[in-house]
Each structure stands twice: as structure tokens, then as C-alpha cells.
């Protein structure tokens, strides 16, 4: 087992090289590739990439044998004007047994490490894992940290070096949780619980997105995993658990925004508070929790930058940005939008 893994690790850059060479002329060099599966930052991800390297090289071997064989035959046995009638060979038992056994052997060399990897990654997580509940929604991600009492959306904050167990489920249709650099994907199934365990070992922001077609805005269901040092993660937890600025300390504009947020509209589903929760303000659960929303890396599940302009555009007409968005176009006045933007951006 150790031997195969070592050779697989050695193979990784070669895998990339081989692919790159095949495409270099046509494609040139682009990148970086933030969702690359070749650049894992967990032992889980490295397991998968290593196994891929192993199978890739067996594949290259088969490819070379078959394609060289075909090309050789085409050149060597091309019909010639003086060619004689070929000998009608109907078969050759020994040869045919040989090329039945050859793929069978290759399969064994692939299947054994495959099954070893399946069982290694299916095992229980390491001691004291951080448990995160990830819930898929059309078309955003809810992340809950029971250990810390935090509910957030679209940014998955994780500490470096501590095992994580992500519990996966869905609030509506099937989604699939995928951050390629953290490892493989796993489906989020309504009515079922799935699990993914890994230990992030590198600090950084890793892009992910939904990998199971989940309706109109499947393409717009993106998120980020943000891996912090242990200290930074503790600081993030503390910040999430700190209260927002008190109502009195808000500026006039921000207070107008809070009022607009609280306003009960007709129909009631047009009210912000019907779907969104903000501590001490509202309890909605259909849409993303907005606690400390100003500190998030993106808006609308990775589709918009978290800026005042983008937030205003979102409030004006969500469906124009994210087709099918379940957040309605409310018909807010420009003044309400300005006020809401100011208020929401105060939620640091």
C-alpha cells in the first residue's frame, strides 16, 4: 500500500505535465485554477489525487499499446497494388487468452488500491472533529456550527489542522457539496444525511460549487471554504458570537434601513423578516441568516462581490442576477435600497 501511494504521489506532477503537453499548443497557459483537483490540501484529497495518478498511468499504458498497435497495423498492412490475398486467420486461442488475462491483471492492480482507498476514507473521523452541518438550498448554502451556536451562509470557515466532519443534507432538492481542493464531492439529499470527513492542512480560500443539477440557477450556487490558522478561526468564532452594534449606535440612514428590514409588506412574503434572521431582529429561516453578513466574502452564493453597489443591485432585482431566485423582487424604492444597504453593511 505504501509503495503504491509513493509512486502515485510522484506521478502527480507528471499527470499534469502529460495533460498540459497534450493541450499546450491549442490552449496556451491560463490559470491559476482555484477548483483544480490536482492541488489537494487535505489527506482525503491527496488520497483521491494519488489514486487518480495511479489509474492515469495504467491508462496511458493501455492507450499507448492500443493506439500504437492500431497505427502500426495501418502502416504495415496497408493494401499494396501487388498485395496478395491475406491468409484467412480465424483466431488464435493462446493469444486471445493472453489478451483476456492482460486487462484482468490491470484491473486487479487498479481495484485493490481502489478498495483500500474506499475503506480508508470511509473510516470515522479523527478524535474531536469540528462538526459542521451543511444544508443545501435552491441556490445557496447554509452552514451551522452546533459547537459554537453559529449559523452562517455561503462561507465555510474552517480551522487548519483540525479534523472536520461535514454533515450534509438538503432543504429542497438534491445538491452536491464540492470543494475540489478539499477533496471529493458528496451529495446533499433531502431526507437523508451524508458525511464528508477531512483535515484541511493549508490556510487559504478554496472555491467550491454545487455539482448536482438542482434547477434554474444551479450554476449560481457557489461558495468558499476559508481555512484559518487555529487562532484566526477562534477570532472568527468570537466575532460571529459578538453582538451587532446596538440600535442606538446606528446612523440615521442605518436606522431607516433597519426599519425597512422590519417592515411588514404585502404580500407578507415580501417582508425581509419573513425569510431572514438577524439576531434580536427577526427569526426567518427560509433565506440565509444575515448575522454579520457584511463580513462575508461574497453575496448571493458566490455570484456577487460583497460591495454596496452589488448589494443594491441584488435588492433591486434578485432574479436579474440569479435566475429563479426565491427572493422576490419587492419593488423597493431607491431610498429604501440605500437605507437597507447601509444597515446590512453595518452588520460586521
Amino acid at each position, binding site marked *: 500500500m505504501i509503495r503504491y501511494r509513493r509512486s502515485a504521489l510522484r506521478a502527480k506532477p507528471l499527470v499534469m505535465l502529460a*495533460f498540459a503537453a497534450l493541450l499546450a499548443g491549442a490552449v496556451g497557459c491560463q490559470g491559476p485554477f482555484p477548483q483544480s*483537483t490536482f492541488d489537494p490540501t487535505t489527506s482525503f484529497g491527496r488520497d483521491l489525487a494519488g489514486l487518480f495518478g495511479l489509474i492515469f498511468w495504467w491508462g496511458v499504458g493501455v492507450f499507448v499499446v492500443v493506439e500504437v498497435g*492500431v497505427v502500426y497495423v495501418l502502416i504495415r498492412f496497408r493494401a499494396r497494388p501487388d498485395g496478395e490475398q491475406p491468409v*484467412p486467420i480465424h483466431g488464435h486461442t493462446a493469444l*486471445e487468452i493472453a489478451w483476456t488475462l492482460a486487462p484482468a491483471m490491470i484491473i486487479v492492480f487498479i481495484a485493490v488500491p481502489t478498495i483500500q482507498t*474506499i475503506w480508508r476514507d470511509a473510516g470515522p473521523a479523527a478524535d474531536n472533529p469540528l462538526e459542521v452541518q451543511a444544508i443545501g438550498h435552491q441556490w445557496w448554502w447554509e452552514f451551522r456550527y452546533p459547537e459554537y451556536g453559529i449559523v452562517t451562509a455561503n462561507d465555510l470557515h474552517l480551522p487548519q489542522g483540525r479534523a472536520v466532519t461535514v454533515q450534509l443534507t438538503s432543504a429542497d432538492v438534491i445538491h452536491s457539496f464540492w470543494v475540489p481542493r478539499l477533496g471529493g464531492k458528496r451529495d446533499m439529499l433531502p431526507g*437523508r444525511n451524508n458525511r464528508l470527513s477531512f483535515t484541511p492542512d493549508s490556510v487559504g480560500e478554496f472555491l467550491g460549487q454545487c455539482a448536482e443539477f438542482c434547477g434554474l440557477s444551479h450554476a449560481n450556487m457557489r461558495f468558499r471554504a476559508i481555512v484559518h490558522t487555529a487562532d484566526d478561526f477562534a477570532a472568527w468564532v468570537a466575532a460571529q458570537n459578538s453582538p451587532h452594534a446596538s440600535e442606538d449606535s446606528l446612523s440615521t440612514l442605518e436606522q431607516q434601513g433597519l426599519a425597512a428590514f422590519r417592515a411588514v409588506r404585502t404580500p407578507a412574503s415580501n417582508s425581509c423578516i419573513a425569510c431572514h434572521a438577524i439576531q434580536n431582529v427577526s427569526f426567518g429561516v427560509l433565506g440565509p441568516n444575515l448575522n454579520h453578513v457584511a463580513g462575508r466574502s461574497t453575496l448571493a452564493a458566490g455570484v456577487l462581490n460583497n460591495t454596496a453597489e452589488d448589494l443594491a443591485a441584488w435588492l433591486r432585482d434578485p432574479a436579474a442576477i440569479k435566475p429563479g431566485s426565491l427572493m422576490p423582487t419587492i419593488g423597493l424604492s431607491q431610498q429604501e435600497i440605500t437605507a437597507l444597504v447601509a444597515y446590512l453593511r453595518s452588520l460586521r
Partner: protein
Amino acid sequence: MGAPAATAGSVAGAHGAADARSGVWGWITTTDHKRIGILYGVTAFFFFLLGGLEALLIRLQLARADNTLIGAETFNQLFTMHGTTMVFLAIMPMSAAFFNFIIPLQIGARDVAFPRLNAFSYWVFLLGGLFLNSSFLFGAAPDGGWFGYANLTSIQYSPGMNISFWALGLQILGIASLAAAFNFIATIINMRAPGMKLMRLPVFTWMSFITQLIVVAAFPVITVALVFLMFDRMFGTTFFSVAAGGDVLLWQHLFWLFGHPEVYILILPAMGMVSEVLPTFSRKPLFGYPVIVYSGMLIGVIGWAVWSHHMFATGMGPIADSYFSSVTMLIAIPTGVKIFNWIATMWGGQIRLATPMLFAVAFIILFTIGGISGVMHASPPTDLQQTDTYFVVAHIHYVLFGGAIMGIFSGIYYWWPKVFGRLLDERLGKWHFWLVFIGMNVTFFPMHLIGLLGMPRRVYTYGPELGLEQMNLVSTVGALLLGFSMLIMVYNFWWSSKHGEIAQNNPWGAATLEWAMSSPPPVYNFSVIPEVRSRLPLWTVGGVTEIPDVPPEPVHVPGGSYWPVVAAVGILVFFIGALVQSLWLAVGGVLVLVVSVFKWAFEPFEM
């Protein structure tokens, strides 16, 4: 027009019964397997071009990051209809065109076992295809993917008619496929000429036979799944409703229990075609005929035990993952054996690289790549990084375009002179081939990398931050090249009909029985039913008894019937009734069906 229900059967002499068969009415009421084959071919090729156009629009949208050419809604409809069209309306019926035209000729029969059922299959297929595509006219084309995963397809998450069009359309097409499958099984078992033992059957007929057996077993599974889905949508059952204790994974198990054998339904006929072309153009018999036949059977059997390899990301647990992974890899063995036997067939031959041969060789080259990437996601751990990404899109297109379509193109160039009596132009054919070969690789090879670098499938847009814009553009350029190459093919069809070289009986010097009579064959196929004494009748001295140019005695040819068309219309009306939820329409459709089947059953047996 207005011919009586049962046109008197015609007695074809040396000049055939051309008069009774002419005109549009002759084609509508035809029960001649050759004409039905042409109808299948023309219709399926039209749907193939339509599906290709849908693919071009998909590629244009993805040519740039954050592109706004096509919106999310249209895009989702396009990829759903592209997949559905290519599988059910293009590849399967293009294969059916060959089953129809070639199988009776290869086994020495005058027609299929049930000629009117054969016509019925075609009309149901045509109407089903029109039903599915008519959804575009209502702006309600299916948009849940060709795999239609529950519970996205539920009335709650897909309230429009889109999914109903899809589910009902597939049911219609299933009827056509099942009727045809029973017909060909009966034909191949019962209608073989004397001496045409099973182990003398041409490999194309063998692979088609296995395909039909798979169809008979697989389509009931999807039928059940679709009935569940429609009952959930129409009558409030809860098969897939989580809130009521249903299970979304039930759909996936049923769908893939059908869907994986379906892959072999698509590829086995093409493997059969290639197995005919390679020996002909190498002037050598197929290497290891029995092993090729047995490995086809093995593929057809093992194909039933692997369906959950489409579901590794659903978290089935290590035992199921290990089992489905290992059995899936086993399929590589019979597939590998076939590939080596094909190469061995060419070994030592006198290889003529005519257009059919070019496509057959390309099949080996490209299908091998698809097979290799298939083993990569047969391994669940690696599949977790590949499933639902463009890597799998690359894989299926190497298998279904590089495999099935290349095989079918090979078959088209190979059998065209037999079907239409004129050869296709070789120069245009070679241009077509090279453009397809290059275009196919430029389109689909980069998708391997696009997927491994993190692009999921079925996304109508992607951000520039992924760094995948250039590769996507390359892929789009390849798709345009592919689209252009099809124009050359169509031009070649047209050119050949005017100026193509007149085909002799056996223009390629092939060994099988369909090349023993004139091109195109007379309406009665064989002037006398031959006796076959060899697996390679035309390459063996005395391999088949003499087939005179002129029938020594009159040959009875059954007349046409319009009841199969009426029955097909009845089925269409029933499904339209289901779509618009009109009980009266549904009942009316059933009545039409019952009456026409009754009339059909008691149609006078013309003599």
C-alpha cells in the same frame, strides 16, 4: 390515395411491384423493412442534426465566461433535450435503421417477423419524437436533465409542463423500442435462412440481437420509474416525496438500472457495424468470431450489475462502493478483448482505407480513450472528483460520439450503396472523416481537463476566476468544426443521389449475405431463399446456394397497411390526453388504439 385498408398483396416478378408502392401513401402504409429502415434513418438523422444544433448553442454559450447569449432557462432546456434527443431520437433509431434494413438481408429473410408491428414501431417513434420536441413550441421544453433526477422533477419544484412532456415522451418512445425489440428477436430466432446457424450470424446481427434482449429487459424498468414520476405529478402519490416518506434515491436506482444497460443498447450495434467493416476492408475474416460474440453477451449481462457506479457521490457506503466498482471494472475485460480482436483482424490484412474503414478505425482509437476514462471513474474515490464534471462529459462523448456515432457513420458509408444503389463520394467522405475526427477531439479532449480543473456539468455560466475560459473556447471551436463537417456529409448524400457511382451487388467485396443481391435489393430481397453453408458465404466457394437475378417463380410480397399508423396516432392522442389531463382525449386515444389493433389483427390476409 384512399386505398382500401388491406391493399391487395402484390406479386412481384422480375420488375417488382413498384407501381403499388409509389407515392407518399405507399411510404405511409409500407410494411417493407427496407423502406421502414430508410424512414428510421432519415428521421433519426434529422433528430441527430437537431440535437447537434442544440449542442452548438450550448457550446456558444460556454465559449466565454459570464456569457449572456443564452439564459439559464433556455440553457437547461437545451442540455436536457440534447441528451434526450441524442440517446432516444438519434443514436437508438439510427441503429434501428440498420436493424431494419440490414438484419433481414444478413440472415436471408424476405422481411421481419411482424412487418406491420415494424411499421407501428416507426410511427410511434416518429410521433413520440415530435411530441417531445413540440414542447419547444409551448416554451416548455424539458429542463430537468436527460436523467430527470427526483425530486427536482416533482410538481413542487417543476410545476410547468416541461417534465410532463419529457416523462410522457419517453413512455411513447419506450413503446416503439419494445415493439421493435420483440420484432427483431422473433426475426433473428425464426426467420434465418436454412443453414444460417446462430454461430454463422454476421456479428452485426449478433450484436443487434443482444441489444434487443437488453431493450426488452431495460425499458420496463424506466417505464416503471416514469409511471411513479407521473403518478407523483398527476395523482399526488409520494414515491419520491421526502416529506411523505418517499425516497429520492429510488429514482436514481431505477433510472440507472435502465440507464446503464442503455449505454450498451447504444454501443453494441456500433460494435457490430465495426465488426463487419474491419474484415471487409482488411480482406480477412474477423479474428476470434466466437470470442467477439461471447464478449458481447458478457457485456450485455455484466451491464446489469453495475448501475450504481453512477451514484458513488450519493454516499452508498464502502461495501456497495467496493462491489459496484469492482464489477464495473470487469466490463473492461470483454471490451478489451474486442479491441484486441479487432486489431488482430487487421493484422496481416490488405487494409484499404476507404471512408467506412476510416470511421471504423477511428471507433477503435476513440472508444479506447472513452474506455480508459471509464475505468477512471469506475473507481469511487477518483469518481468523487470526476462525477458531474466535464470529465464525465468528455468520457460519454468519447464513448457515444467516438464510439456509437463513429460506428454508425462507418455503417452509413458502408451500407449506403446497398440501400440507395449509389456510392457516396470518397473524396467528400474523407474530408468529412478528417473534419469529424479532428473536430471531435478538439471539442471533447479539453473537456477532460476542464472537468479535472473544477468545472461541473450542466452549468449555464461560469466565472472567469476558474481560469477555464480558453479551454472552453477551444472546445467551442471544435464543436463548430463538427457542425461544419455534418454539412459536408449532407452535401455528400445529395451529391451521391445525383452523381454517385452506380453500386454493383458487392462494391466492397464483403463476405455477408446482404451483398449477394442487387443494390438496392429487389422488394422481395431474395429471388429464392438461399441455403447458407458458411459464416462467410460470399468468401467461401459454395458458401451459399445460387441466388438468381430473376425469381424462378413469382414471389408474394405483402401489401401495405395503414392500421399501424392509426394505432400509433391513438397512442399519441392518449399521451396528449395525459399531458393536458383530459380524460376524454385519453379515452379517445385508447379507443382509436383498440379499434386499429382489432382491425389490424383481422385485416384480410391478402393472397
